[in-house]
């Protein structure tokens, strides 16, 4: 990557500018704050010149007064370019484009979900078109049912082609396309049905009108201007995409993508966008519940009664055990650690998961290896994916890999002097070129289609492949013996490609529960690091704060062994998803009192003696660390109701009870963050991270609401006639109000996008240094791992593990699903419609031998556990192996990889 940027001088409407040469004129103008209306150009998708709206006048030289109309999105910025945006002919042409689009666009803005944040509305005003001259009937279409996420209203389509370009070209989807031709082109599926691509929700933001809208928002629709918003961070996987969480009338109305140039850019996955509905679940734990004595039912109690009870639980005499959670914030986990004491703080994850994540975070802290952001993943030119089904375990990483697959084709384009923004030409030229991407997984992967080579085998052999690659690069690295004949050759091929690459990237993770895979991935990173400096390693972790938890003291709760506790506190965690029934039951038996803090009922909350309603991400402030080691904070969008409180607030209360002789000075979130940063050096950067709660703009906090927020004085009139005051909100620099500066807050505190004239998400241009670039003031988040000088290579040695499996049994590996394998999103009604029943993938030959058919229901036995599953045959699973759905709702915990057998039901 060359850092050298060539600058050129251009003239726009008589003013000269010095601008970057490799851009097109449209993005240049947008970076300069010059508004040019446009539809088909999207910063992440490039230019195609279809809509013709971004027309400007180009002049040959100073003496040329006539000029000619060109499309600014297709115009390269070259030295001496003279253009006019304000030229009357160009203006009038732009208005004509809107006028002709309006010949068919319905006048249904008042009932359209896009109204108020519609790019077409903004562009219509911007272009100056007002009077209608078309007096013939409008064209109409039939709409389709596209599943639980997306609503389809084709009459509103203005044929900008952004949807198919995003869905097909960018995200690799197949089932959305453009059909028919002329003024009857149709954007949809070949027939009604659920959109299959994992990123379909982005159509809502990519579509400039109301063709594709959020179906979950529709259920409790609110105009953008009436929403109260908070910058948030997705809690449904370890990637930490930035989101905007929006509220009205006390419920969370929707999640949108929040731009972060280093993380998710413009997009998020469907689990992140639609998983939010659990927050509004009727069955949320809203009140404190107490079990008077063992055997009694849980009964709601008031605060007074609660605290009299807690005085006993937290007396100094009692020994307390705290079990933290990878889906709870750093602050909550740290408060629990403080309450229970370091030696009594346990991580609420299995022993194996603990070991694997700890290995990874230790490695990142000491090895000096660079953990890439998603943006950096997109820049990788050779990628080796070891064991991870990215589309299901970290969807946005899969999307970034899809973009990385274009790097070699992009190089071809550069050689042919085709600018990279010229999307169709670049794709045309590069259609026969692929980047070297290698994938080793236990079953077929949806990224296989962009891979140079996909390798299917057991986790054991995948690890062996990894070890062999490391060994090929450095003979000091340990080798492993494979039983596969073609493995050494493949290892040679992959190691050669990695060595040749400018920006090689290794992606692996813990989803297979296999030390070999993790160790092998780290070994490859180490050997490459010893040969060169710029290898990147991305390790996918299971949950949103898995990385944060692994950096804290303590070990797995499975290490509790026979330890008995007076009070066991479980923080936002269903332990039955983490360990076998017997172990967890036994653990609960050994505890006199079980206190659980959580959002929704699960098997663990059922066992609690005191159940405390914990605020979700939408109702609290908190910091989580993504798999890159980036600390990011989410802010409260919804005020807490009933007895719901942030977990850390509950825990601070408990600390104050227990340490009543000390005066504890944790009054707000910033205080905890400060203590945490002081006590655990790995978190020392956190205090430098972002504006604290005292941050003010124009002497006031940042408004969560738009200036057009309606009903402010009447919204609670059904409760009290007098206007209720603003909530205190001491933990954040934001306020539940419309008053204050609306434009350009610090990048990590953007509650919504708006600038004069821009009401849609496209208002984002004004928050960025340049389209698709970094945010003004830097991208949100602070990285905890920074490259340190390379340590001596210590290699992980392969354990002598036998892949032997009992006769008649299959080796069973975990099968993660984007919809279903994550706990919270699975409770959202829209996501739950996408969850498939538990299934077992087996090989075709095994199916023949075992005389079973696709779709058969079988009883699967793994050790002493049994589960009813549906058989699916094929999917690249190798003979003697199988893949079992992981952690779907209602499934018990299985420690995988394992072995088992099944019989037909």
């Amino acid at each position, binding site marked *: 990557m060359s850092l050298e940027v060539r600058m050129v001088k251009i003239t726009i409407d008589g003013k000269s500018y010095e601008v970057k040469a490799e851009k097109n004129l449209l993005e240049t103008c947008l970076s300069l704050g010059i508004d040019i209306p446009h539809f088909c150009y999207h910063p992440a998708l490039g230019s*195609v*010149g*279809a*809509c*013709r*709206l971004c*027309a400007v006048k180009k002049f040959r030289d100073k003496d040329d007064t006539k000029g*000619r*109309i*060109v499309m600014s999105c*297709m115009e390269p910025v070259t030295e001496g370019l003279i253009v006019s945006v304000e030229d009357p002919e160009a203006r009038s*042409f732009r208005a*004509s*484009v809107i006028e*002709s*689009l309006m*010949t*068919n666009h319905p006048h249904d803005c008042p009932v359209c979900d896009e109204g108020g944040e519609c790019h077409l509305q903004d562009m219509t005003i911007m272009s100056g078109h007002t009077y209608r*001259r*078309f007096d*013939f009937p409008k064209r109409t279409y039939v709409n389709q049912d596209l599943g639980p996420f997306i609503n389809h209203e084709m009459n509103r389509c*203005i*044929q900008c*082609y952004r949807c198919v370009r995003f869905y097909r070209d960018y995200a690799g989807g197949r089932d959305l396309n*453009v059909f*028919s*031709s*002329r*003024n*009857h*082109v149709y954007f949809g599926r070949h027939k009604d049905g659920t959109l299959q691509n994992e990123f379909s929700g982005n159509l809502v933001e990519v579509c400039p009108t109301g063709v594709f809208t959020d179906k979950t928002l529709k259920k409790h629709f609110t105009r953008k201007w009436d929403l109260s918003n908070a910058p948030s961070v997705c809690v449904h996987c370890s990637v930490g995409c930035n989101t905007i969480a929006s509220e009205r009338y006390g419920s969370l109305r929707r999640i949108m993508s929040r731009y972060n140039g280093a993380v998710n850019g413009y997009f998020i996955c469907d689990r992140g966008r639609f998983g939010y509905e659990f927050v509004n679940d009727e069955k949320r734990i809203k009140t404190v519940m107490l079990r008077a004595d063992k055997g009694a039912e849980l009964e709601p109690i008031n605060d007074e009664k609660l605290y009299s009870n807690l005085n006993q639980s937290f007396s100094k005499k009692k020994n307390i055990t705290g079990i933290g959670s990878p889906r709870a914030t750093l602050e909550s986990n740290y408060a629990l650690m403080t309450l229970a004491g370091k030696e009594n703080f346990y991580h609420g994850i299995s022993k194996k998961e603990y070991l694997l994540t700890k290995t990874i975070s230790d490695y990142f802290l000491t090895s000096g290896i660079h953990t890439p952001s998603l943006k950096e993943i997109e820049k990788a030119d050779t990628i080796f994916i070891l064991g991870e089904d990215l589309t299901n375990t970290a969807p946005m990483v899969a999307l970034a890999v899809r973009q990385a697959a274009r790097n070699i084709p992009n190089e*071809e384009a550069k*050689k*042919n002097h*085709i600018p990279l923004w*010229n999307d*169709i*030409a670049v794709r*045309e*030229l*590069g*259609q*026969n070129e692929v980047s070297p991407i290698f994938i080793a997984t236990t079953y077929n992967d949806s990224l296989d289609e962009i891979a140079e080579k996909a390798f299917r085998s057991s986790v054991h052999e995948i690890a062996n492949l990894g070890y062999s690659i490391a060994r090929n690069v450095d003979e000091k690295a340990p080798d492993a013996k494979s039983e596969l004949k073609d493995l050494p050759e493949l290892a040679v091929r992959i190691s050669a490609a990695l060595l040749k690459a400018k920006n090689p990237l290794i992606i692996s993770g813990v989803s297979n529960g296999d030390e070999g895979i993790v160790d092998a991935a780290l070994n490859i990173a180490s050997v490459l690091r010893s040969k060169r400096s710029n290898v990147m390693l991305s390790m996918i972790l299971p949950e949103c704060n898995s990385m944060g938890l692994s950096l804290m003291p303590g070990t797995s709760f499975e290490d509790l062994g026979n330890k008995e506790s007076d009070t066991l506190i479980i923080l936002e965690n269903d332990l039955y998803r983490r360990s076998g029934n017997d172990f967890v039951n036994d653990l609960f038996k050994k505890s006199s009192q079980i206190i659980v803090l959580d959002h929704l009922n699960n098997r663990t909350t059922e066992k609690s003696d005191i159940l405390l309603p914990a605020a979700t991400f939408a109702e609290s402030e908190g910091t989580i660390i993504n798999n890159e080691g980036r600390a990011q904070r989410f802010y409260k969008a919804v005020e807490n109701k009933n007895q719901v409180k942030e977990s850390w607030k509950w825990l601070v209360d408990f600390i104050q009870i227990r340490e009543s002789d000390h005066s504890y000075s944790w009054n707000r979130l910033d205080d905890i963050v400060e203590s945490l940063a002081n006590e655990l050096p790995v978190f020392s950067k956190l205090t430098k991270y972002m504006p604290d709660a005292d941050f003010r703009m124009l002497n006031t906090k940042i408004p969560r609401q738009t200036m057009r927020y309606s009903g402010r004085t009447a919204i609670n009139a059904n409760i009290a006639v007098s206007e209720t005051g603003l909530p205190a909100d001491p933990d954040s620099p934001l306020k539940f109000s419309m008053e204050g500066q609306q434009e350009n807050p610090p990048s990590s505190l953007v509650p919504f996008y708006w600038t004069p004239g821009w009401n849609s998400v496209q208002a984002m241009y004004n928050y960025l240094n340049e389209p698709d670039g970094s945010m003004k003031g830097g991208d949100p988040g602070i990285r905890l791992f920074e490259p340190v000088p390379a340590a001596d290579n210590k290699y992980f040695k392969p354990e002598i593990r036998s892949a032997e499996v009992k006769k008649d049994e299959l080796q069973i590996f975990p099968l993660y699903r984007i919809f279903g394998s994550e706990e919270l999103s699975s409770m959202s009604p829209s996501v739950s419609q996408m969850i498939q029943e538990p299934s077992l993938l087996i090989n075709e030959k095994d199916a023949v031998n075992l005389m079973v058919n696709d779709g058969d229901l079988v009883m699967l036995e793994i050790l002493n556990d049994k589960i009813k599953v549906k058989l699916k045959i094929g999917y690249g699973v190798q003979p003697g192996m199988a893949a079992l759905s992981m952690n779907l709702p209602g499934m018990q915990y299985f420690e995988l990889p394992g072995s088992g057998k099944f019989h037909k039901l």
Partner: protein
Amino acid sequence: MERPLTQHIISDTSVRNLENYRKVGGYSCLQKVLKSMTPGEVTNVVKVSNLLGRGGAGFPTGAKWSLVPMDTVKSNLPKYLVCNADEMEPGTFKDRYLLEGNPHQLIEGMIIAAYAIQAEKSYIFLRWAYKKAEKVLRTAIEEAYSAGYLGNNILGSDFNLDMHVHSSAGRYICGEETALLNSLEGKRALPRAKPPYPALNGLFGRPTVVNNVETLSWISHIVEKGAEWFKGLSLTGTGGTKLFGVSGKVRKPGTWELPLGITFRELLEEHAGGMIDGHKFRGALPGGASTDFIVEEHLDVQMDFKTVAAVGSRLGTGTMIVLDDKTCPVSFIHNVEKFFALESCGWCTPCREGLPWVEKMLSSIEEGTGKIEYLDLLSFSAKYMSPGNTFCAHAPGAAEPLQSGLKYFHDDFVKHITDKKCPWR
């Protein structure tokens, strides 16, 4: 008068088979090229001859070939030669005559052209409705393969060329060379943005030359007889003969090979036999539906690219559609615009949305429900769809008969609106 392209098309069957084509000297030029000429020399002859593309745009063929990179870099290989035989311009049927009448003349021209740009693969992109031509071409290509004119080591040289006929799915826009390439790749037939040009980034992203049937049919003749001979064929300096055609209410509609530079009047009166009795000439679209009207006053203009352009129209394909006084000009233009509206690919806004609006206004005027302000709106639409405003030349082409029709038949439009009916009905 020499008629090199059509001299051997006497009856339907004469030179279609290889034997007969060879008897009249066929493939001797190819032999000479492969034995004694370098690719650069071939390109140079064509360049010097000033052969202008016969598909309608009149782009110099030699110049087009010269843009193809001749270094053998991986990203430049394989190179392609594509013959545009998607003859769908309304009123145009000249390529069909050559395809059905003398397929080997085209094949030989293609092999020489492919040699000049060192293409390894060639396609004939054929209009779907040309079923007879398809059969003829497939047979001829098979013959050429058996005789060693196609395939590997053609005539013992180290030049290899494969040739395929692709019978298109039938869209007018496929005649646009980049839409043709997309269609050939199995994609939607949408034009591509230029630059990059097909010569660099064409079929499957590789260097490609797309030439019209008539253009490619010239190649063996030009290489054989030289650029000077070619230049001498026309009455103007341009060079060559051209297949001209006439349709409409004339006595003898048809297509003829005539020198570039004959006048409209000569074509109309001598070759097409003049108007049918009782019909008067009112105007004509000189080179297919996407060209501006010429009227009575232009009949003495010479038919060549520059001379026709000088009077505000285009030579186009050289096949004219005649409008007579018994036909309503509004209905005539409406019919043409309806065709263009239906054949829009739907990619860019002015074309996709502008043409149906034009069509609706014309239909309304023809039905007697039009408003006088439609005339301004129609003129506005024609300007709105002008070159540069749209993604490709489809809508600007459609605007040509519209804008000139509004000029020459203004009174007829007004009469429709004021009388609230079509005077011809």
